[in-house]
């Protein structure tokens, strides 16, 4: 069962130039992407910076406008909805932002930050509202007594928890997590990630997990899509991607993961060399004449790759 489907999504930005600043070209941030989210799973969207993964996430939640394509949720195409109609679905899709420093308004107290969606979607008395905020604070592992503090009084990890609490207030079904831990110290990354896994079970959440870090994605995801230059190059289950990578770009990404075992260092180096050679040798096999990525093709029930 699919309950969020992104179909042929394109997000283009105009490039203006010349004397009259007419549109002379487009930057294709997202160029024809199709993906499905199954309820309760975590879909990892991976790629280097600038590959369009964040744009994809932000378009799904309505922060960017889709140039073409559909985003189907509950059989309704969200890209066609007017702002007012979209409001109904807002609470079902929520987002965790990358930067826990700028994503919390510095002038607001924690209670106002977490209660913001409550005030938009529910009518609660101030007392009920405060109780709910305190419950959420407890749930994300923060002291319920600190709801009148300002964000700058919390650490990065704590701030990210506040961000998660805020996303949870309206009981969403899908959470788009855009690099949720990349701004955090490595020491607290695992904490936040495990906590995200816990609440996923508790709330039966579906994650679209956007990251550049394959290690983290492997830890979090059930299925993974690899993005490159605005297109998907490979998609499959965690095992598909990590054990049988088919596209050269996926292979290169995997080869770039540092190996902590020093005994295997030479082996690892050899593998990287091989991958690199294959890339140079077989470039035409993976990219068409204009250097564009091919469309995805199914090679098994769960595994697709962009090959001719």
């Amino acid at each position, binding site marked *: 069962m699919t309950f969020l489907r992104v179909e042929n999504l394109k997000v283009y930005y105009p490039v203006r130039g010349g004397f009259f600043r007419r549109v002379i070209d487009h930057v294709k941030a997202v160029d024809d992407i199709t993906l499905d989210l199954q309820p309760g799973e975590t879909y990892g969207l991976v790629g280097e910076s600038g590959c369009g993964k964040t744009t994809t996430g*932000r378009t799904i*939640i*309505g*922060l960017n406008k889709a140039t073409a394509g559909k985003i189907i949720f509950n059989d309704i195409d969200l890209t066609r909805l007017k702002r007012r109609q979209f*409001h109904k679905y*807002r*609470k079902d*899709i*929520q*987002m965790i*932002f*990358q*930067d826990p420093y*700028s*994503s*919390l*308004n*510095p*002038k*607001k*107290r924690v*209670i*106002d930050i977490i*209660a*913001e*969606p409550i005030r*938009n*979607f529910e009518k609660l008395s*101030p*007392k009920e*509202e*405060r109780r709910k905020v305190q419950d959420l604070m407890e749930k994300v592992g923060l002291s319920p*007594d*600190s*709801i*009148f*503090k*300002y964000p700058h*009084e919390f650490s990065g990890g704590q701030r990210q928890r506040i*961000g998660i609490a*805020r996303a949870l207030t*309206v009981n969403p079904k899908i959470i788009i997590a855009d690099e949720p831990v990349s701004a955090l110290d490595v020491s607290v990354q695992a904490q936040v990630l495990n906590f995200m896994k816990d609440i996923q079970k508790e709330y039966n959440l579906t994650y679209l997990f956007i990251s550049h870090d394959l290690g983290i994605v492997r830890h979090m995801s059930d299925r993974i899509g690899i993005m490159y230059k605005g297109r998907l190059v490979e998609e499959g289950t965690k095992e598909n991607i990590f054990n049988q990578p088919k596209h050269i770009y996926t292979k290169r990404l995997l080869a770039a993961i540092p190996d902590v075992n020093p005994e295997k260092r030479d082996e690892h180096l050899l593998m990287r060399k091989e991958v690199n050679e294959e890339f140079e040798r077989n470039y035409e096999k993976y990219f068409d004449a204009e250097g564009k990525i091919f469309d995805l093709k199914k090679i098994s029930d769960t595994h697709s790759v962009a090959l001719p």
Partner: protein
Amino acid sequence: MAAPAVNGNDKEIKFEKSPSGWSIIFRELMKDKLALFSLILFFAIVIYVFVYSMNIGPDQIDRIDLKNKYSPPNSIHWLGTDYGGRDVFNQLIVGARNSLTIAIAITLITSAIGITLGLIAGYFGGLVDNIIMRIIDFILTLPTLMIIIVFVTLVPKFNVLNFILIMSAFYWVGKARLIRSKTLAERELEYVAASKTLGTPNRKIMLFQVLPNLSSIIIVNMTLNLAGNIGIETGLSYLGFGLPEGTPSLGTLISYSRNPVVMEEKIWVWLPAALLILVMMLCINFVGQALKRAADARQRLG
């Protein structure tokens, strides 16, 4: 700002409440002795002027006493009298009240326009921004002072309200530009995107999310503007294009000095008004600069 949604006297509250942005600014002000002194002095002047002027009826200002033309300061006329034998001190107080009231009104009106348009232009961008910015750019290149003077002489039934409106029509642009550029920077921050995903309407995001983050800039700007507006109003009144006849301004008192005899020998007529303007301007600017430092975390005194 950012008042919590619960009522403060709830008994079970034992929360750790942190100082809000305002109390930080206030604390900074307290540390700057000169600014504090300026603030107190300015408020003392304002209160004195407003309270005292309530005791002065219009007849006390206008009463002409030709026997007492240009009488120097004495026990009845603390600051002497002018060419019509009218009491200068009374005119000074009423003039200061008028100048202050008008400057405050202009500051409030231009702020309302400037903040609204600046927020809209900066927040939405695109076509709206383009239109608003073109208007601003155009008004900025106008010889504002001259056009105001032309308007002042053209408006039939010229009165104080007209004067305030004419001034406001031209002096909102700087503020709008400032607010726009700050909003432009602010809207790129993730908390704005977050508010959108949380279903908060644009209007509310502008007013309750972005605006509080601009509050310190606005306060500083309004303070400095108040000083600027006093200067412009008194300047126009000095030239004879400010407040209408019968509404004394500090500028009107100073304009008596255009007569060389008054300038040289009857300094009690114009000098007190000039000095009062100086003192008020310095006070307001000291406070404004201190607020500016307080608002800028890097410059705080600690």
